[in-house]
């Protein structure tokens, strides 16, 4: 069995692919909305240097990634250990050397990576216009507005992904998540704007 097949097998026997998928959407959404919030915060504030905006957003992205990774690892490791213990009790056998033992050791790492990398990578995608602008690339619209557009697009895509999982209309699901992002943006604007 190749490494990829082995990973797929471990995910299947523990039903962890559903958990990983859920974490990806939930934390990806966190990443996109956090960046949206920060960027709107900068938009309604006194103009700041693009480098400062990038550093603040990057700091938040790293913190989101680390928080997602560590919290998922700790909770999943505890859950897997508990599940393995219950299974060992039922089987009256030591399962450390079995596929279930491997799953208990490796799946928390995999799920932690999904949970941490989803918000981090989505945040980096949102920051692309800021980096381009900082590097001297001329964009068709202000880098902050371009970043907001990317954040909204990513939220819409996450909604489409959810719609496909649920087997409902992708457009309806995408628009639902987009609406949440727009309402969030309005709240931030209303509560922080002048």
């Amino acid at each position, binding site marked *: 069995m190749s490494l990829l097949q082995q990973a797929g097998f471990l995910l299947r026997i523990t*039903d962890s692919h559903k958990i990983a998928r859920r974490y990806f959407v939930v934390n990806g959404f966190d990443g996109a909305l956090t960046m949206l919030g920060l960027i709107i915060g900068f938009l309604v504030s006194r103009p700041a240097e693009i480098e400062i905006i990038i550093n603040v957003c990057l700091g938040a992205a790293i913190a989101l990634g680390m928080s997602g990774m560590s919290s998922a690892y700790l909770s999943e490791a505890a859950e897997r250990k508990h599940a393995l213990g219950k299974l060992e009790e039922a089987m009256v056998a030591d399962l450390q050397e*079995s596929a279930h033992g491997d799953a208990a050791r490796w799946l928390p790492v995999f799920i932690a990576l999904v949970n941490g990398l989803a918000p981090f990578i989505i945040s980096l995608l949102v920051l692309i216009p800021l980096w381009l602008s900082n590097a001297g690339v001329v964009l068709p619209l202000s880098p902050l507005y371009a970043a907001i557009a990317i954040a909204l697009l990513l939220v819409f895509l996450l909604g489409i992904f959810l719609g496909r999982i649920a087997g409902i209309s992708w457009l309806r699901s995408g628009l639902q998540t987009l609406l949440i992002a727009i309402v969030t943006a309005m709240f931030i604007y209303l509560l922080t704007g002048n």
Partner: protein
Amino acid sequence: MVSVKRIVLDVLKPHQPNALDFSQAIAEVGIDYRVKLTVIEMDENTETLRLEVQGNAIDFEGVQAVITSMGASLHSIDEVEVQGGADTGNLT
């Protein structure tokens, strides 16, 4: 050379991997293995199986290793068919 042609095992396994994954993993031990799995009993966390493996020369150690690696345990060997002879491959 003596070769094992058929074995019937009593196995206790967790619900996962499911019967299909479990049978396939055992069939992969040899190139001509034919596996028949029957669930005899099921409870909250485990299921008892009757596992029949047929092949030209069954590697029992290999089958047992796969059973263990899947988190299952072999309870007993219930039936065995063994064939002796100089060249078992030509026998029908």
